[in-house]
């Protein structure tokens, strides 16, 4: 009888090891898979640096003539394949509307001082984050890591506007490793 127990034990261990060896699921993400990305992932690989700065300049010229400041999504490249994925990305917080002391909406940008930097980050380097649980921010110069579902196309007030938006599930302080 002892040997039967040993055999069962061995079988259980073997099963567990096989399960572990099957390993982490491959990275063509399932819907609940969290993709760890950084800011360069938000710019399509086929677009060069020069194109981005050209587009920023062209965008600025369009401003004065038509007095609009929208970046046409057809002109400004976004990474469409990220649409609907759950991602995790670190960044700095630019608070938008605050309800009392709670930050429920903010822009996530790659560097601190985006609002005073000239030029500001291009539209595909800004993420408009909405969070149900208010963010407790230690200071503007503290980075955070945001996890949530990102989308690439938004249409507001009948005018298409370029930018990533994200419904945040979790926000934690960012620790440099």
């Amino acid at each position: 009888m002892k040997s039967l127990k040993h055999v069962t034990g061995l079988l259980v261990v073997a099963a567990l090891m096989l399960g572990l060896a099957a390993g982490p699921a491959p990275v063509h993400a399932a819907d609940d898979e969290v993709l760890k990305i950084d800011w360069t992932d938000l710019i399509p690989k086929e677009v060069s640096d020069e194109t981005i700065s050209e587009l920023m300049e062209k965008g600025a010229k369009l401003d004065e003539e038509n007095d609009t400041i929208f970046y046409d999504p057809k002109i400004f490249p976004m990474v469409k394949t990220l649409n609907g994925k759950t991602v995790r990305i670190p960044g700095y917080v630019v608070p938008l509307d605050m309800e009392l002391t709670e930050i429920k909406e903010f822009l996530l940008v790659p560097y601190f001082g985006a609002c005073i930097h000239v030029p500001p980050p291009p539209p595909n380097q800004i993420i408009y984050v909405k969070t149900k649980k208010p963010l407790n921010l230690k200071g503007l110069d503290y980075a955070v890591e945001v996890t949530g579902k990102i989308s690439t196309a938004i249409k507001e007030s009948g005018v298409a506007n370029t930018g990533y938006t994200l419904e945040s599930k979790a926000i934690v302080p960012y620790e440099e490793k």
Partner: protein
Amino acid sequence: MMPILKLAAKSLMNRWATAALTLFTIAISTGLLLGVERLRTEARISFSNTISGADLIVGARSGAVQLLLYSVFRIGNATNNITMESYDKLKKSKAIAWTIPISLGDSHKGYRVLGTNGDYFRHYRYGRKQKLAFKAGKPFSDLFDVVLGAEVARALNYKLGDRIVIAHGLGRAGLTKHDATPFAVSGILAPTGTPVDRTVHVSLEAIEAIHVDWKSGAKMPGRTTPADAIRRMDLRPHQITAFIIGLKSKLAVFRQQRRINNFNEEPLLAILPGVTLLELWGLMGTAEKALLAISWLVVASGILGMLAVILSGLNERRREMAILRSVGARPAHLAGLMTAEAGVLTLAGVVAGIALHYLAIAVARPFIRAEFGIDLPFGLLTSYHWALLGAIFAAGLLIGLIPAWRAYRYTVSDGLIVRT
């Protein structure tokens, strides 16, 4: 345990004068700590409460915090004005949903006068996106109509239809009054708990109207244009002090900010109110930490004072200890007694401190509301506050271990015979 606590209480009552003084120092220090913490959090809540839903605030180029303070909180002053041409040009943008122009520089009995238009009552939001509501009356329709904030109406006892005179400049005493053009109260706003309550609102045209006889910053003597003549003049405003912008899409905020900051016809500054508010708190953070550190030092001195009092009394109480030992108390009991005394004293001090801080709030509240427009509610203590109070009690209890130890040593060495 209970007999020791009872004994501790009775023992303190026996020396009630000294005990009361010690209790008082602990109460004051606890009240101070609580008060400082409450003021800090309430001030932040109050500041954030003041404006909501605004994406950008624009003024003449000065500093971000300065612009936020004078435009929204009515603290401090602008360095310059904005021409109406610039405002008209900048507000024409497909990205902008609404704007609110404001004009500052005059006062009434120390309350700031704000020139604006109907957009203010339509679009201004505070707190959790709350609209401005009228307690009585309505926005201005006549040229010389004025809408009062709740606190102004209450403090100066104004009602609908009352006539008031506006003074030039922002001093408390209106030395130079625009008395040829008295205003009629057309509306009184409901209380908001923000600086809106301390503001006197008139139309932009009215600001032009009251300055008709003013040339180069002085009221021309002997020249007073009657109110009727003023009404017939062209009173289109030439300048404003600042304006608030609501955008159609938040993603446009950086571009719009840059457009305004780079506007080459006039030096302007556009700020994001949320960002600047956090900058302001960052600045205040150092002062707050210093205040908190000082409060803790005061608490420490209160507790050390208690220690000094208990220790100094210890020598005289050796006979008392001997008596207690003779009726069966063990040295450990006496050590417990000392600790219990310290604990009871600290606890009573902390409770008195809580009462004291509420008293201080009650006293300070009307003054702070009148001076700053900040509402300091009584509120309940949060778990953070209870943690602070718990720390104070624990400190007092721990300090009590020192006389406990000495009492233990004394009774062991004295036994039942005290040689003093």
